[in-house]
């Protein structure tokens, strides 16, 4: 702005201009308030929604909660025709299938993270990283359908007999059943689902390790594995744990694909090759056909358990992950 213009600014403006400026200022004040107001409203809507979700699920479960109390968690009978419900075998099935998926998936996913962050040439990285994320984009119902028609026959015909013959002395590898529907098949499907989640978070984590540290180790003569083992993994360990927890949360809550391949069994058995069921899958399978109020309420009770487990695993993951500035899973 030139010096000659400044006196004009300092002069009192004409009445008309001051009136329009006044009007503008008022409009701006209203505009600012309104924008802030609707943004706040949208944010509050989210908070209220979460609270409402918790309320609705607990409310729907209240008849079952007051009838069975906390013993519901350990009772293993589930007989809708006799009006007897307990979540014991379902909690067992959920825990076994999810932990098996994590046990199989986490090492593979962390390796993929290492490959994408440290090993891959940049052209290959640009191609493989989106492909791994595509794995998360395949709808669970289609993965489950594929599981029923393609994976389950293969598991039943090839994988399970082989594992049974080789490691049959361990009780978890019992005799295969006539269909491929088993906790084991469900675990494999869940493995496919948790891999992209853990892989993409851990890749981002590994990329945050300072190059100075890695270069320093290399300069001291460390091999690539020793750099990974000595520098990369220790400095990101808690983040990797948080990523695995998010993957676990995904596996625990998956309903559709598991319902399709797990076989809806109701017993607790040592063998992974027998049918089982999980909390989420039982809800998906039985809710549409639930006739009695107590049956519905019991399914809602399963939802309460699932909600508590899901929120807890997420909160712990957030709490651990806060040290690294990553936030949440890229996809459920």
């Amino acid at each position: 702005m030139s010096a000659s213009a400044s006196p004009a600014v300092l002069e009192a403006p004409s009445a008309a201009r001051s009136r329009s400026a006044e009007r503008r200022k008022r409009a701006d004040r209203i505009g600012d308030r309104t924008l802030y107001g609707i943004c706040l409203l949208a944010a509050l809507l989210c908070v209220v929604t979460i609270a409402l979700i918790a309320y609705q699920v607990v409310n729907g479960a209240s008849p079952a909660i007051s009838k069975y109390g906390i013993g519901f968690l350990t009772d293993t009978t589930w007989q809708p025709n006799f009006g007897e419900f307990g979540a014991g075998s379902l909690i067992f099935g959920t825990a076994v299938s999810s932990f098996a998926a994590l046990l199989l998936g986490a090492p593979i996913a962390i390796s993929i993270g290492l490959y994408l962050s440290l090993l891959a040439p940049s052209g290959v990285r640009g191609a493989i990283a989106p492909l791994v994320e595509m794995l998360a984009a395949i709808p669970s119902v289609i993965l489950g359908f594929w599981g029923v028609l393609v994976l389950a026959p293969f598991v039943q015909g090839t994988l399970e007999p082989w594992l049974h013959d080789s490691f049959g002395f361990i009780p978890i590898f019992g005799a295969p059943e006539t269909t491929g529907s088993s906790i084991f098949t469900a675990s494999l499907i869940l493995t496919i689902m948790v891999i992209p989640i853990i892989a993409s978070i851990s890749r981002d984590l590994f990329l945050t390790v300072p190059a100075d540290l890695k270069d320093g180790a290399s300069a001291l003569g460390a091999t690539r594995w020793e750099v990974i083992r000595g520098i990369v993994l220790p400095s990101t360990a808690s983040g990797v744990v948080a990523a695995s927890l998010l993957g676990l949360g995904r596996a625990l809550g998956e309903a559709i694909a598991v319902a399709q391949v797990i076989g809806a069994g109701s017993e607790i058995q040592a063998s992974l090759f027998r049918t089982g069921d999980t909390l989420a899958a039982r809800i998906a399978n039985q809710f549409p056909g639930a006739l009695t109020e107590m049956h519905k309420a019991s399914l809602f009770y399963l939802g309460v358990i699932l909600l508590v487990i899901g929120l807890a695993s997420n909160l712990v993951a957030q709490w651990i992950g806060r040290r690294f500035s990553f936030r949440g899973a890229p996809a459920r």
Partner: protein
Amino acid sequence: MSDAAFDPTAPLTPSGNLRRRRAFSRGADLAATGAALLAVGVLAVVVYTVVSRGASALDLDFLIKGAPEGIGPELVGTAIIVAIGTAIAMPVGVLVALFLTEFAGGRATNLVRLTLDLMNGLPSIIIGLFVFGLLVNHKQQSGIAASVALAIIMVPLIARGTQEVLLLVPASLREASDALGVSRWRAVLGIVLPSALGGILTSTVLSVARAAGETAPLIFATSVFDPSRFSLNPFEALPNVPVRVFQLSEEANPEGFAEAWGLSFVLVSFILFASLGARALLARSRKRRSA
């Protein structure tokens, strides 16, 4: 040193311990590469199965007719459900992102951020139970209920994506508008949002791709429908692709399986094209901004 003579003409190859360490490291490299190939291989097998079994069912009649010849009603129903869900989720998601970036500060921000993370991590079957209790119980199933469920799934995705691009808007733009005495709301609506528009659309498309295949909430909201009849009324149960695939996969009926493969093929191709396209756009706009 041992008494072995040092041979200066020997080739410089690692020996002993170093060779072992190198071999181990090489092995670890191979294992990591193998893991990446395994994941890509699984994706290839799944997509190949869906394409090879689904494409044969596909022709024009299959796409536009109702059951038993085709899947038209499901496609229309899913489109309606997802469109309404997006119409709910997009404004809310963008506004929440604005709240977090433009009006940040204080405890409210942390609470909202935590809420979004929890919403994102919530099992979708829980959202189904919620929608059943709120909108379906003692009433009837409806496409609207399904849209609300999908919107709850989409909001955190859109909010996070939008937040990321809002943070990328150059500070110089905001400072320039401040220096000119532009008020907050004019700056947000006139400068910040337009320059973030590409990213907002990208994250919306990605969330649409996620929501289109979501099945668990729809089982509660809109699962009792007639697959042979077209329905456009969102206040009644709408036929839709994911629930139909789920139902067909539970019946042991070869014709049903063929139809389910066809449905899967359409759904998977939509999702893959939408998300790959959105990612490509995002990568291009990032490159342009950093250039």
